[in-house]
């Protein structure tokens, strides 16, 4: 087996390099604390025979598998219920029509060049698999700005300090570091921690707190340059006036510091990317590749999954007319979300049926709001990033493309708090848009005036998905996931839900490649 590579170095060489620099104890720690996914580009020898694989679902898991099995000489056909590839990797543009479960229809009114990614919208730098295929398929990516210190945090609870104000995130971060360093330094300076700090360590900690918290000679925090100014530096006639930090009480009693993990989260750290033009450039990039050999059957719903000793038999029907056909193969790779699959007639053993019915899907809802003017940029100098807030809608994301342009689409952000997201999903599409606009207008008073149109997707109302992502409990992950990572006879399972990166395309991709490797081995050995 090949050595796993990290940024082009073999793991062993990297360990050696770290070990030399940091001492061997730290070397293993630095690696295990890494964020980088364990993706390795598959490298299968081409088979002489061409085993047939029927792949169910053309999301990222199904597409990556079709791509790699095709390169290894397998004969693949994909059965996909929708009229498009991508599954959850989906982009909505002007003119697109979407009918949700329950029958409500929307036609997107965005101007050309503007879009909403209702599902996945960002690819962190450490999702090496996704970026590998973007590179390989020639899908252009651009930075997606997730953390922007000029965007706001905001809470609306008037019983707490700092309610109802747009506070730039730079203030929160500066004051959090400053106030905690100040408090700790003053305790240490007064000898309160002498029993745990020997004199050299005490000096080092004090020096470190002074530097990191921007404290003055008395270990007092009086604000700093990255917090921002009351009067910004100007020409010779306008000397700057620093801003005054929040008090320790206001800072902590406001509870705004609870947003810090969101800002620093490993999945949110720079650099993140998005495909130029919309996330669906990834799935369409797979299909457009000359190396992609699979036959695609779009608009065909899988109706039955059958198998015997000789092969698999997949019954599928035209999603519009109901006319059925049968596809046969040596193996099946099923990437249909468990929330849909558990009800499809199949001769799976009982433990698999039970496992498939034991994975509920989390809720999420997104609204795209098009405005005639990019007031967040023009008036407030916010270019990308997210404003975080409490209440029914927990974030507004500013576009990372089209800067300085005429119009823009804000993403009234989904919420992974299931209850809040369900509350959004329970509304009609028009009411979701109205509610998101009202919230946007609370932050940006210019919103109502320049609002043009909106589009909303609530994932429990999306046909063929029935939710956002597989929601495991500690117990179900331990009991049920192992059942589904083994094949049921000739049927292998894959998808976002069968990974430790739930709700990420990288998870779908890694799961798809695991199943691909297993099918490749069987095909090679003719089992």
């Amino acid at each position, binding site marked *: 087996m090949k050595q796993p590579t990290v940024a082009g170095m073999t793991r062993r060489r990297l360990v050696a390099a770290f070990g030399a620099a940091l001492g061997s104890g730290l070397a293993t720690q630095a690696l295990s604390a890494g964020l980088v996914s364990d993706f390795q580009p598959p490298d299968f020898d081409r088979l002489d025979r061409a085993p047939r694989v029927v792949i169910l679902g053309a999301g990222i898991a199904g597409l990556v598998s079709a791509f790699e099995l095709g390169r290894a000489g397998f004969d693949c056909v994909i059965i996909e219920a929708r009229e498009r590839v991508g599954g959850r990797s989906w982009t909505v543009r002007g003119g697109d029509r979407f009918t949700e479960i329950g029958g409500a229809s929307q036609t997107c009114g965005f101007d050309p060049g503007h879009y909403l990614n209702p599902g996945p919208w960002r690819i962190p730098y450490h999702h090496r698999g996704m970026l590998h295929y973007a590179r390989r398929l020639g899908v252009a990516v651009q930075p997606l700005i997730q953390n922007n210190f000029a965007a706001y945090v905001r809470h609306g609870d008037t019983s707490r300090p700092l309610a109802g104000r747009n506070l730039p995130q730079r203030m929160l971060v500066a004051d959090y570091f400053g106030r905690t360093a100040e408090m700790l330094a003053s305790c240490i300076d007064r000898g309160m921690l002498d029993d745990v700090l020997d004199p050299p360590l005490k000096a080092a900690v004090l020096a470190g707190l002074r530097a990191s918290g921007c404290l003055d000679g008395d270990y007092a925090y009086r604000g700093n340059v990255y917090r921002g100014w009351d009067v910004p530096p100007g020409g010779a006639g306008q000397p700057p006036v620093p801003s005054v930090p929040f008090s320790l009480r206001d800072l902590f009693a406001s509870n705004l510091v609870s947003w810090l993990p969101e800002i620093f989260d490993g999945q949110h750290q720079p650099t993140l990317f998005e495909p130029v033009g919309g996330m669906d450039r990834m799935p369409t990039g797979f299909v457009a590749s000359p190396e992609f050999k699979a036959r695609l059957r779009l608009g065909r719903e899988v109706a039955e999954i059958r198998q015997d000793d000789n092969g698999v038999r997949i019954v599928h029907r035209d999603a519009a007319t109901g006319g059925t056909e049968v596809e046969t193969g040596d193996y099946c790779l099923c990437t249909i979300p468990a929330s849909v699959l*558990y009800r499809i007639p199949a001769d799976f053993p009982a433990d698999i049926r039970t496992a498939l019915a034991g994975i509920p899907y989390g809720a999420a809802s997104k609204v795209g709001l098009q405005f005639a003017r990019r007031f967040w940029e023009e008036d407030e100098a916010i270019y990308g990033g997210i404003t975080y807030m409490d209440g029914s809608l927990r974030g507004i994301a500013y576009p990372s493309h089209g800067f300085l342009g005429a119009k823009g689409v804000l993403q009234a952000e989904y919420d992974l708090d299931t209850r809040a997201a369900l509350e959004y999903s329970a509304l009609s599409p028009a009411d979701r848009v109205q509610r998101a606009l009202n919230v946007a207008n609370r932050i940006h008073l210019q919103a109502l005036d320049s609002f043009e149109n909106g589009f909303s997707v609530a994932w429990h109302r999306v046909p063929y998905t029935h939710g956002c992502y597989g929601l495991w409990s500690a117990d179900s992950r331990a009991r049920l996931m192992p059942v589904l990572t083994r094949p049921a006879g000739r049927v292998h399972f894959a998808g976002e839900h069968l990974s430790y990166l739930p709700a990420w395309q990288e998870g779908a991709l890694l799961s798809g490649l695991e199943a691909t490797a297993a099918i490749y081995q069987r095909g090679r050995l003719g089992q």
Partner: protein
Amino acid sequence: MTVARAVRAVLALSLLGALPAHAQNDQAAAADGLRLYTTLCQACHMPDGAGAGPYPKLRDNPTVRRAGPAYVAQWVLFGYGAMIPFCNLLTVDEVVDIANWLPSHLGNTTAAPPVDPEAIRAQWPSPASCP
């Protein structure tokens, strides 16, 4: 009618102050049942319990009528398939309110007895099995 308006209308109509304590509690519980239905269950089961696609109709639902609140509570606590369990999302009282509300609303009537907080608490799934 929006959710908030519906809830406000129910509260405004009720003569809370003029009723004996147990009737007040019943009315408040019913208002909570309606609120929970319209803000949460409706995301899948649709306004008015109409159902659609994979989500069963809860209006005039024979099983809900026959098996009553205890049956609804089972679904709400444990979920199944595409229905999420609510054990991490609702309080004991909220589960009681929705379980008692559904079998006698949305066109349902039931002869089955109501559930109480003790019974619900006793069945509550362990935190490790609650997603």
